[in-house]
């Protein structure tokens, strides 16, 4: 029986469906086969898949091909799914025809953050986004990301996300919402939209900006307010103060030899911070052409020389890793490295009140109160000869250094940079602009582009206006699109109280939070990975963001709501974004290639903003410093302003400076703590402008005295199982006229609050896990890293060495460029399905991170140096863990990997005891979430999810190694350098972590291991670690006494 007798008749799927419906089992398959074999289907397929041409020639394969295609076609036809609108997304690397289960696809998108956006590649396994990588083509990423981007994929799968539209708390739907909004809008439209207010966060999406323009045209009286608790408001206002227009500075660290940071933590946040870290690091990296060949010193008495002193053997006495592999060809290394005498790196001065990761890498760090940075700026500007500025004394050691800093800057005119912090007042920014101008940096190390913000108003004023109008009864309908103002608005404005006076309140947000509780309507906001949008990067480059998956729930975007307000029909995000770009595109004919290329690349070519030439004016006056005790507000490094409060990965991420998780604290200096009579975990009450809040103290060496730093983003009451009840709410004492620093009183309460820290000992305790030298010392003594802990010579062991002849995997971590940002920790967690254990378990010492960033304070407790050290598995050639496992659950591969075999582990934990680096993590309880369904999606299918009772540790991302090896084997070649990048190395903004094949003399890692600065952690234990470090160098100004 055939479906149709006439081959030229078009194929009727419904008939096929009808035929197959109702048949079961063997009858079903028989019918299917008949269907597949029918001539009609075959003809249809011939038309549909003409590119199967090569198969036509071979009759057998032709038939097979038909059968397969027909079967799948028929099956597609009989599945009872609703017809989805066609929205074509374009993958970055491979076209859909190559779709293979088990092989991930990558799609370019971007994550809006910090008022800009960072270009990303999202990895999709079988249609599920599981991992975020940087987009190598995006100028703001260059392949790297920050930890917020890494963790954002978990937010997509968050089980606590809003899932439906709600009205008065009851389930409703989008259609009803549209109806309500439309009717409200129509009523207000009679008065040109008066009474309708829209509150958004910082918008930089061209599509959304265009929609607002339309709204303004149609409803001129509608007001657009902007408020974001940690937006770069002061940057914009500073530019307006200095230049008279809202511009965004774009920095070029690759051209800067001397950098002065005025409380600017530019490694941590800001739209370009990932790029800036990379550019800075590129000017920091030292590669010399001396190879690493540590000799056992003749005069040492440590007993490492058995018997008579061994003759100096150039090759044999080297570290075992070099032994069996040919040392890098000198020509190769010379091409990469410079002679030692020419080694040079940039120099950074940081003025800040609390230690930051930028301060950690400073060559000179000056501790001043946050409110005194303005005076520092004044003094520096005066020293640089900026007109109309007087020097001001802070009374700290920083004052004495200003002259020398200015001298250093002037010696590098046009190749230096003064950068003001995002949370310093606009006057400081203006001063920074004048200084850069005086130093001739404009156009070289700093350029000015049009503000990324589509509506660069003073956000505080905008907010105040809204609150004032709400209180005055002028607001009929309030649309809150994104953000959580009830939680984030400073306490003096009482947003919740004002909002209650509004007749109709509608909220678009990702979570059912403090704001949606007080709104009539709540619409779930779609996550950026599941919808269409567009955004600008730090230099203005636009990325058209494409989804990787259909919205999991009923999520909508800001644009989809605005289009209703604009009076346009209800359109999907895809239609809106595409429609906008189509409208901008003059020539319809080549829109499709433009669209496809933009989606594929992740950037819209030619949208980087052109810098403008401006001249800066000094501000009239600088806000005076806070007299007495100051409290400084800062967004938290893990949850930012509270938007990530329900993200387990971020909550559990140790904050670099304090190594705390799951809480915010009140940072004070050791002297302040002593004065207050408090220590860690003691609760203090902070009183400022008639309000108070209580928080736990954390003593931070290197913090300014008479100053405390508190973090936003905690103390929330609603928003998911993790968001509420953690930490204290700093917004309770924040005021609209003192957003970032306020005078306050601290008082001990006598209570205590348990905190969960992952590192209990903050100093190196007379050991030297981190080897440090100044650049000058390095030049004199290139082998400084091996002085304290010698390399154990090869000949001391009785065992013959194993010859690693194939691949020899190794890793090099450059401590000189590691900023301690912790992105590697989250990247590893995302890639390897690492569980979140919760505060109680972290407090017990059971956190599960496979790579950790150790942070040591060094030197004077009141003014210490900070050092960071990422510690993954060392993959010891002589692994202490392998020796003691009773069941051979940890073994060594022929390529040098120490392999953890989860299904063999019985959990005796001897391996953890014997690991001197303590990089092994044990599942003491069932930490992996076995039951929450939505979290199944975020897991990487290439990595086992571990159950209770097994040990786990860094595997050098063996799943990536194996997939590259398989690919290379299929192509009958060797794996090339750069094909395998572990998650940590890929995410690192400064590329401090490098992985590769040591047996390949041209690989980056082999060359890095040949550097004289290279050492192994605890190498004198003879573990022979494959993960090696490059010693940290500092570049202090010899004229300033203390570093």
């Amino acid at each position, binding site marked *: 029986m055939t479906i149709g007798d006439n081959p030229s008749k078009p194929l009727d799927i419904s008939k096929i469906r009808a035929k197959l419906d109702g048949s079961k089992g063997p009858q079903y398959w028989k019918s299917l086969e008949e269907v597949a074999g029918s001539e009609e289907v075959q003809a249809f397929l011939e038309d549909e898949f003409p590119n199967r041409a090569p198969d036509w020639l071979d009759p057998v394969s032709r038939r097979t091909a038909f059968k397969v295609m027909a079967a799948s076609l028929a099956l597609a036809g009989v599945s009872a799914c609703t017809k989805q609108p066609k929205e074509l997304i374009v993958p970055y690397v491979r076209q859909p025809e190559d779709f293979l289960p088990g092989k991930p696809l990558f799609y370019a998108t971007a994550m809006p953050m910090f008022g800009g956006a960072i270009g990303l590649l999202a990895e999709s396994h079988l249609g599920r986004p599981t991992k975020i990588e940087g987009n190598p083509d995006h100028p703001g990423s260059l392949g790297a990301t920050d930890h917020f981007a890494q963790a954002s994929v978990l937010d997509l799968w968050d089980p606590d996300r809003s899932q439906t539209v709600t009205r008065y708390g009851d389930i409703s739907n989008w259609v009803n919402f549209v109806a309500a909004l439309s009717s409200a809008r129509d009523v207000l439209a009679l008065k040109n939209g008066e009474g309708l207010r829209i509150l958004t966060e910082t918008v930089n999406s061209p599509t959304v900006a265009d929609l607002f323009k339309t709204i303004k045209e149609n409803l001129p009286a509608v007001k657009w307010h902007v408020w974001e608790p940690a937006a770069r408001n002061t940057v914009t206002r500073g530019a307006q103060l200095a230049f008279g227009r809202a511009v965004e500075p774009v920095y070029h660290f690759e051209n800067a030899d001397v950098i002065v940071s005025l409380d600017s933590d530019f490694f941590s946040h800001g739209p370009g911070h990932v790029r800036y870290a990379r550019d800075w690091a590129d000017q920091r990296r030292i590669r010399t052409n001396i190879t690493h060949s540590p000799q056992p010193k003749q005069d040492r008495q440590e007993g490492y020389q058995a018997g008579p002193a061994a003759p100096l053997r150039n090759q044999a006495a080297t570290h075992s890793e070099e032994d069996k592999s040919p040392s890098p060809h000198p020509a190769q290394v010379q091409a990469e490295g410079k002679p030692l005498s020419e080694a040079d790196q940039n120099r950074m001065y940081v003025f800040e009140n609390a230690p930051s990761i930028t301060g950690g890498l400073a060559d000179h760090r000056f501790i001043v109160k946050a409110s005194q940075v303005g005076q520092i700026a004044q003094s520096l500007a005066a020293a640089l000869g900026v007109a109309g500025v007087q020097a001001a004394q802070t009374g700290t050691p920083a004052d004495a250094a200003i002259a020398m800093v200015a001298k250093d800057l002037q010696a590098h005119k046009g190749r230096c940079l003064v950068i003001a912090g995002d949370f310093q007042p606009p006057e400081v920014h203006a001063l920074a602009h004048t200084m850069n101008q005086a130093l001739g940096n404009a156009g070289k190390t700093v350029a000015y582009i049009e503000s990324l913000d589509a509506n660069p108003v003073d956000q505080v004023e905008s907010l105040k206006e809204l609150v004032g109008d709400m209180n005055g009864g002028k607001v009929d309908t309030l649309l809150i699109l994104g953000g959580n103002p009830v939680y984030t608005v400073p306490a003096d404005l009482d947003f919740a109280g004002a909002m209650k006076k509004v007749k109709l309140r509608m909220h678009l947000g990702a979570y059912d939070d403090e704001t949606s509780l007080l709104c009539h309507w709540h619409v779930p906001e779609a996550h950026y990975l599941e919808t269409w949008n567009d955004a600008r990067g730090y230099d203005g480059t636009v990325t058209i963001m494409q989804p990787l998956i259909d919205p999991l729930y009923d999520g909508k975007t800001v644009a989809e709501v605005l289009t209703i307000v604009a009076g346009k029909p209800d359109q999907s995000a895809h239609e809106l974004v595409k429609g906008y770009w189509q409208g901008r595109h003059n020539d319809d004919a080549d829109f499709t290639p433009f669209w496809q290329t933009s989606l594929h690349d992740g950037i819209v070519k030619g949208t980087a903003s052109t810098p403008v030439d401006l001249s800066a004016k000094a501000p009239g006056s600088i806000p005076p410093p806070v007299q007495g005790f100051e409290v400084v507000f800062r967004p938290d490094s893990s949850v930012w302003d509270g938007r990530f409060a329900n993200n387990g990965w971020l909550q559990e991420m140790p904050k670099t400076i304090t190594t705390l998780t799951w809480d915010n604290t009140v940072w004070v200096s050791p002297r302040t703590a002593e004065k207050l009579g408090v220590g860690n975990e003691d609760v203090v009450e902070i009183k400022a402008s008639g309000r108070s809040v209580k928080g736990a103290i954390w003593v931070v060496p290197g913090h300014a005295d008479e100053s405390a730093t508190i973090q936003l983003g905690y103390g929330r009451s609603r928003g998911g199982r993790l968001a509420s009840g953690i930490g204290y709410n700093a917004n309770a004492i924040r005021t609209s006229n003192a957003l970032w620093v306020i005078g306050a009183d601290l008082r001990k309460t006598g209570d205590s609050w348990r905190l969960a820290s992952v*590192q*209990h*000992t903050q*100093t*190196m*305790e*007379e*050991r030297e*896990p981190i080897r440090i030298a100044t650049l000058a010392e390095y030049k004199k003594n290139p082998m400084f890293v091996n002085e304290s802990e010698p390399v154990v010579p090869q000949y001391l062991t009785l065992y013959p060495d194993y010859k690693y002849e194939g691949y020899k995997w190794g890793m090099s971590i450059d401590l000189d460029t590691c900023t301690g940002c912790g992105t590697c920790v989250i990247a590893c967690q995302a890639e390897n399905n690492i569980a979140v254990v919760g505060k109680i*378990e972290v407090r*017990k*010492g*059971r956190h599960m991170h496979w790579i*950790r960033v*150790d*942070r*040591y304070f060094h030197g004077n407790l009141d003014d210490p140096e900070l050092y960071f*050290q990422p*510690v993954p598995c060392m993959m010891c050639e002589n692994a*202490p863990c392998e*020796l*003691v*496992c*009773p*069941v*051979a659950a940890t073994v060594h591969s022929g390529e040098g990997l120490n392999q953890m075999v989860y299904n*063999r*582990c*019985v*959990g*005796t*934990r*001897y391996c*953890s*005891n*014997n690991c*001197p*680096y*303590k990089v*092994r*993590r*044990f*599942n*003491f*309880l*069932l930490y992996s979430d076995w039951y929450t369904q939505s979290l199944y999606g975020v897991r990487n299918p290439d990595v086992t999810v571990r159950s*209770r*009772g*097994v*040990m786990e540790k860094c595997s050098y991302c063996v799943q990536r190694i194996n997939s590259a090896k398989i690919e290379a084997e299929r192509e009958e070649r060797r794996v090339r350098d750069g094909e395998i990048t572990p998650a940590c190395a890929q995410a690192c903004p400064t590329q401090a972590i490098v992985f590769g094949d040591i047996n390949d003399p041209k690989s980056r890692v082999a060359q890095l291991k040949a550097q004289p600065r290279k050492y192994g*952690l*605890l190498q004198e*234990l003879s573990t022979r670690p494959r993960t090696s470090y490059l010693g940290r160098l500092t570049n202090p100004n010899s004229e300033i006494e203390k570093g």
Partner: protein
Amino acid sequence: MKIEEQEHVLPPPVDPGPDKVIGPGHDFVTVTEEISNVVLQPLKKTPKEWFGAFVVAFVVMQLLFISATWLFYKGVGVWGIMIPVAWGFAIVNFVWWIGIGHAGTLISAILLLLKQDWRTSINRFSEAMTLFAVACAGMFPVLHTGRPWLAYWLLPYPSSMWLWPQPRSPLIWDVFAVSTYATVSLLFWYVGLVPDLATMRDKAKTQWQKVIFGMLCLGWRGSARHWSRYQMAYLLLGGLATPLVVSVHTVVSFDFAISIVPGWHTTIFPPYFVAGAIYSGFAMVLSLAIPARKWFNLEDLITKRHLECCAKLMLGTGLIVAYGYSMEAFISWYSGDIYERFMYWNRITGPYGVCYALLITCNIALPQLLWIRKLRLNVKFLFFMSLVVNCGMWLERFVIVIVSLHRDFLPSSWGIYIPTKWDWATLAGTVGFFLTMMLLFMRTLPAISIFEVREVLHHLEKEESPGLEVVS
């Protein structure tokens, strides 16, 4: 005149003093009667102290079952272990219990080969003590693994994957050592029991006693041939068990000595551990013997001589342990290695310094009082001392395991181990289990070796009046 018809009056259970191993007025029959009465007397006649102790021990033992059940259900995280201290109470208890067992084997085997008469009253129950201590110890390797249902992978069985345990790991050596120890101890104890079980069968008062003892004694007739073979077997087993006294705890000490952790990685551990084991073992022997002899009126069979010998051995091994401690301290300084030096300094001055101070007090300072003879012969003091030493030896393992682990090479991974209630409950539970088993043993099996005491009696009488022949 048949024995069973004779009316034998048992001499009063008075301690004859530190010079004699047996009280006066004993002959073969009285010895047999005194020991077997403990077992064969009707239930109502059991001393009430035994009942009291049994109830307490039984209740405490339930803690073990509850803790183990909760542990299997939730996972090893119910204990206080973490990174870096991944071994906590479980391993401390394991080593402690195994150590305790060593005294039993030393008394049974080594003192047998050395022909020490005074061993005969205490060897049976100290061997039982070994068995139960090893049973307690053996629970911990299973309890403490993350996946205890797979703990059998540590055994060398031909798996379908042909994957054997990894023989370079000291934990596998432990498996062999401890299982050998358990097997040999069980055999030795059981073989030693056989003639006495026959005696029990002969003296049994009820039918079921007769049947059970009859089955257990494997058909012992007490013929000359039986005895001659028996002596050889017993000596051989003694010879087999003797090296175990040294080897088992040496292998257990390898768990630590083989690793690289400062505080563990030291060659003194094998002799130090063995000495410590014997030390704690004798302390436990005293802790058990002193109440038992009182409740069951056995003071004339377990005399002050036995107690004093135990005390002297305790003192002797305690001095070896003290030497071990001082050598550890000296070498850690002498090595010049910063990690070793820090390790010892941290033991004394670090967060667990109190444990170290207690340890020195219990293990070294207080036991020096045993030099004083008067105190050695004071039974109450000896009991107190034995408890002190037991605690001290537990603390020693605590200091070795936990204090060494909590601060090793990299300061960033230093941490603090805090035991949870389940840690304590499991420890208490095993103590309850041990005491329950010991109490049951004492009530159901002859706690003193009847035939060996008879042998000693015979030797003593021969010494006193060489010409006289005792007809029994």
